[in-house]
Structure formats: structure tokens, C-alpha cells
């Protein structure tokens, strides 16, 4: 406990320089703007910022990425409240009561509630990130190939189940991601698979260009398909949060913080599910559930606390298991690897200070969103008025440069374009993108551990189902699949 506090204090002291604080504030602002602009998501923002920060020292680069992540999830609430358009999928639940409050002339109060909920949610998540990561890290040391295989499969499966409207299409998207991960040299014999003699494909598909395509270019195509509706922003009152809004709803804040963090820890689920779960729980617990959707402060507080608490939660499995808790966390994990950090069970053995560095970075990001939440409302309103035809080509230029920057290959621009067009088509037909990304990220882990486990057991499948942790995850997967298959069959009848 005291060791943890000491390490956290050390991280704060190390990051407390004017340069680092300046970078944190700038990155939080970039994140808030990315989140506020409909069509630009946290995943896309993180992928673009990863390429921009390639040459920075690793601690500064990761600070920028974490601040962008926290800022983007918070920023989505601005357009949800002012325009009734969620800036990111995580803010969809905030539209219901945030926009209803705005229509009653209480947009400022709604933004104040969103700010206080987001700040407190991130703080609750941070406490768990600091306290739970060492515990889970020690537990993860007991994991073997069997457990990691199941965990990777669980991540892809649960992302497919929960992130779209149709689990079957979610599973197919996840499987497509796993297939993409098999392209290039396989881990054991360096045998080239599905490279069709192309030298550029022999190294496999790089994650960042694929992500920039699937989340960047595809989103731009979707956004441009429809003519932009004229922006009509409701007038707003003061954005300073009322203390009474916080004290009166402390139960909702605590509950949503716990739910958000918990959802974040589950591999592959993400902030949107955290927001909706927190919202649903708040509605169930409320004495006035009929007010939900009509401007309920409780509802808005729950959604905003839940989605921001999910951010530190989603980083916990990244650090301890090298399995991302959400799509943006998958990009963050890729960036950590690019910058020489090795997330996974050994992190508490090899680099325990890094965990507290991440907590400190989250704290700087939280301060950033608090400052911008209280001061920058008018600027953000102006940002929302920037026309689509100006933003889209600029973002596309960043996508192109970002795809190229990772390895300096024109081939990666082609990967970005292919994933963008493919993602646009798949999205149109109802296939979610998050499982696809999780599949690409977890494909290597899944394959390595499946083959390792099979070699260890000489093809005997029993250890997959008899080791306690392995059996628990397998049972969870079986229940999830059975439940969803039953729903699908019932729906088809």
C-alpha cells in the first residue's frame, strides 16, 4: 500500500515539469476536440497521435496518448449535449438526458454534470488501476498457455457479442481480424502465410495503418455519404458544476464508477458498453425512473461517470495481461510496444514503476479535462461549427501521413486504404469494427498460446478444461456463446 503510494508520488514528481504538464494539457485539449467532433473517435485519435509521437521519448509519447484517450472520451459529451450527436460511441447514452437538459435551457448545467461525472469516474478508475493492477499482475503470473489462449479468445468473442447489434456479425468481424493476424511469417518456423509472394506482406499487416483505415478513413467515408445537417446549438447557462449535483448523486457516481471500471477490465468491451450499463443500473436504482430520457441528472451523471471510469479500467488488462479492454486501449497497447514497454504478466516484476507512471498520466489527463470543462466551452462550440468539408480532407491527410510514418513504406498507405474501404462496406452491412481490431491485436497471442499448449499437452485437450482458471474462462465463453446462440435461434423463429 505504502510502496504503491511512494511509487505514485515518485511518478508525479518525475512528470511534474513544465514541459510535461504543457504536453499533458495540449494532448487533453486535442483529445477533447477529437471527441467533440462527430465522426472522429477516440480510437482514430489515438492511432493518429501514435504516429505523430513516434520520435518522442517513450514517457512523453505515452503521456500524450493517455491524455488524448481520456480527453476524447470526455469530449464526446459536448456534441451529445449540444447537438444530440454523440461525438464518440461512448457518449451515445449521454445524448438521452444531456440533450433533453439542453432543450430545457440547461445545457451549461448538463456540461457541468458531464465534467464532474467524467472527472470523478476517471478518479475512481485510477484508484482501481493503482490498487488492482499489482494484484491482477501477480495472479497473471500463474497463467500459462492454456489460460492465455482462452483469454485471447474471450476478448475477441465478448467484443463481438457486445459491441454491435448482431453477435453473429460481431463474431465474424472478430474472426476476420484473427485471419488478418495470420498474414505474414508465422511465429514458429517463420513460414510465410497468405503473402502471395509480396515482400511487404511477409512482415504481416501492421496494426496502426489497419486501425487508421478501419477507424479513420472508413468513418470519413461514412460521414461524407450524408450531407451534413446545419449545426443548431442550444443556448447554454453556466458550466460550473454545482456541488449539490455531485453530493446528491454520490451513490450513482460510486456505482457507475465501479461498473465502468469493471466493464473496462473485461477484455474487448469498451466505453460505450460501460456507459449504457451504468445508465441502465442507475435507472433501475432510481426512485424516479420515468425521468430518464427526459433530462435526468442521475442518468447523465451515470453515463458520463461510467464511460470515463472505463478508461483506466481498460488499461488494467493491457498492463497485466497484454489484452486490451477496449478498441482505444488496443491502440494504446500497440503504442506501448512500439515505445519499448512490454505489457503483460511480468510488468510488476520487470517495470512496476510504469504502472504508477500510467496512473500519474491519468491524473494529469483528469486535471486537463477539468480545466477545459470549466473554461473552454465557447471554443468547443466554435469547433463544432467547423464545416465537414474542411475537417474531412485534413483528417484524411493525417490518416495518410500516419499510415506512412510507422515504417516509412508506401505499402502501409495501401493497407490504410484497403482497411478503410473494407471497413466502410462492412460497417454499412452491420459488422462492428471493434472485434476486428481486437482480432488483429490478439491473433498472435491466441495462435502462439494455442500451439504452445497443444505441444505441451501433446495434443491432449483435457488441460484446457481442467486447470481451474482455464476451466473458468472456458465456462464463461461457453455460457456467452450458448446464451447468444439461443437468442439468435429464438429470433430466427
Amino acid at each position, binding site marked *: 500500500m505504502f510502496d504503491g503510494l511512494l511509487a505514485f508520488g515518485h511518478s508525479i514528481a518525475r512528470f511534474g515539469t513544465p514541459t510535461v504538464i504543457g504536453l499533458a494539457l495540449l494532448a487533453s485539449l486535442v483529445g477533447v476536440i477529437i471527441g467533440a467532433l462527430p465522426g472522429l473517435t477516440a480510437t482514430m485519435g489515438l492511432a493518429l497521435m501514435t*504516429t*505523430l509521437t*513516434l*520520435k*518522442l521519448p517513450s514517457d512523453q509519447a505515452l503521456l500524450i496518448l493517455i491524455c488524448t484517450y481520456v480527453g476524447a472520451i470526455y469530449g464526446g459529451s459536448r456534441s451529445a449535449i449540444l447537438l444530440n450527436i454523440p461525438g464518440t460511441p461512448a457518449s451515445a447514452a449521454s445524448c438521452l438526458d444531456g440533450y433533453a437538459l439542453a432543450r430545457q435551457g440547461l445545457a451549461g448545467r448538463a456540461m457541468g454534470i458531464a465534467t464532474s461525472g467524467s472527472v470523478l469516474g476517471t478518479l475512481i478508475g485510477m484508484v482501481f488501476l493503482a490498487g488492482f493492477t499489482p494484484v491482477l499482475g501477480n495472479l497473471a503470473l500463474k497463467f500459462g498457455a492454456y489460460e492465455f489462449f482462452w483469454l485471447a479468445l474471450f476478448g475477441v468473442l465478448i467484443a463481438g457479442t457486445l459491441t454491435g447489434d448482431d453477435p*453473429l*456479425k460481431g*463474431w*465474424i468481424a472478430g*474472426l*476476420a481480424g*484473427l*485471419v488478418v493476424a*495470420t498474414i505474414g511469417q*508465422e511465429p*514458429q*518456423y517463420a*513460414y510465410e*502465410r*497468405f503473402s502471395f509472394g509480396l515482400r511487404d506482406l511477409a512482415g504481416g499487416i501492421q496494426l496502426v495503418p489497419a486501425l487508421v483505415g478501419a477507424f479513420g*478513413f472508413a468513418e*470519413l*467515408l461514412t460521414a*461524407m*455519404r*450524408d450531407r451534413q445537417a446545419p449545426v443548431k446549438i442550444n443556448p447554454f447557462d453556466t458550466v460550473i458544476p454545482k456541488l449539490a449535483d455531485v453530493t446528491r448523486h454520490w451513490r450513482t457516481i460510486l456505482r457507475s464508477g465501479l461498473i465502468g471500471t469493471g466493464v473496462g477490465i473485461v477484455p474487448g468491451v469498451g466505453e460505450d458498453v460501460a456507459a449504457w450499463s451504468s445508465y441502465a443500473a442507475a435507472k433501475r436504482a432510481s426512485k424516479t425512473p420515468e425521468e430518464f430520457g427526459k433530462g435526468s441528472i442521475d442518468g447523465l451523471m451515470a453515463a458520463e461517470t461510467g464511460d470515463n471510469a472505463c478508461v483506466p479500467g481498460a488499461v488494467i488488462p493491457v498492463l497485466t495481461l497484454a489484452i486490451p479492454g477496449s478498441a482505444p486501449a488496443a491502440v494504446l497497447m500497440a503504442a506501448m510496444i512500439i515505445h519499448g514497454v512490454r505489457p503483460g504478466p511480468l510488468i510488476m516484476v520487470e517495470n512496476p514503476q510504469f504502472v504508477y507512471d500510467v496512473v500519474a498520466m491519468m491524473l494529469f489527463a483528469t486535471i486537463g479535462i477539468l480545466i477545459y470543462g470549466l473554461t473552454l466551452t465557447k471554443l468547443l462550440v466554435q469547433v463544432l461549427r467547423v*464545416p*465537414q*468539408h*474542411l475537417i*474531412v*480532407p485534413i483528417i*484524411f*491527410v*493525417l490518416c*495518410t*501521413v500516419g499510415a*506512412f*510514418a510507422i515504417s*516509412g513504406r*508506401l505499402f502501409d*498507405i*495501401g493497407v*490504410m*486504404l484497403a482497411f478503410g*474501404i473494407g471497413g466502410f*462496406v462492412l460497417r454499412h*452491412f*452491420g459488422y462492428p469494427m471493434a472485434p476486428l481490431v481486437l482480432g488483429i491485436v490478439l491473433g498472435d497471442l*491466441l*495462435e502462439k498460446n*494455442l*500451439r504452445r499448449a*497443444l*505441444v505441451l499437452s*501433446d*495434443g491432449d485437450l483435457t488441460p484446457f478444461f481442467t486447470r481451474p482458471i482455464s476451466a473458468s474462462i472456458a465456462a464463461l465463453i461457453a455460457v456467452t456463446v450458448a446464451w447468444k446462440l439461443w437468442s*439468435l435461434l429464438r429470433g*430466427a*423463429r
Partner: protein
Amino acid sequence: MSSLQVSRADGFGGAAWMALGLALMAGAWRMDRFEQMGGTLYTAPGLVPGLYGLLMLVLGAALAWRSRQAPPATAGTPARPPLLNRRVLLMLVLTLGYAAVAVGRLPFVPATAVFVALFCALYDDRKAGWRRWGGAALAGMLTALVVMLVFERVFLVRLP
């Protein structure tokens, strides 16, 4: 897109996934098994892609089967926008022309300036005449210069 169109699209989608699954299984079967190096079934490079192919075949079949069970379209079913329209096609021409053709072959700054200017001018239907083209040219030049400065000079990232 009506529910009938969705089910038809899912039927085609299911068939496409099944074809991909079969192709994956065939590709996996033809991969080297490294038996001369003591390789077994569990170390074969084709094992995992083959399993994925099988799963893809099953899931594709499930999607195709479900599309046949879908109820017929009812009046009042909300229609989805079409996959492609004039705006998307124009964007595809502009973006592919820029990223797949111009970048890497032409200097970055002029290529980017022309792309952004063309994009702004063609999609901006609020202004007309020289104001539209003048504003678009300014936006193009500024974007190209700022991106070049930020990436190359501030963050030391090489541009294409």
C-alpha cells in the same frame, strides 16, 4: 435498405464468408508441415488458419441460413441509405487519387495543397465563384504547410 434487402445482403455476405472459409482451409492444407524438422500437427503453420477457415465456414453458413429465415419486409420499415452515392464516389476518386497515386510520386506539400483545395471546393455548396475557390486554395496551402511543419520539424516524423 429494407429488411428484405438486409436479408439478401446477409445471404450474399454469408456465401462470401463461406467461400473465404473454404479458401483459408485449402490454403492451410497446402502449407508446409515441416515434418523433416520434427514438426507435428500441433506445430504445423496451417493449423490455426485451417481452424479459422472452418469457423468462418460455420459462421458464414449460419448467417446465410438466418437470412433465409428472416421475415419478409413490412411497410414502414426504415430504409438505410445506399452504400454508394455521388458524394462517396467523388470522395473515393479524390482520396484514392491523392493517397494511392499522388503521394510518394509528387512532392508532399503541393500534392496535399491541391487535394485539400479540390476537396473543399467540390463539397462546399455554400459559396460560389472565386470565394469558393479562393477559400479552398487557402485552406489547402495552410493545411499542407502546417502538416509539414508539425510532422517534420516539430515531431521529426518523415513525410511520404
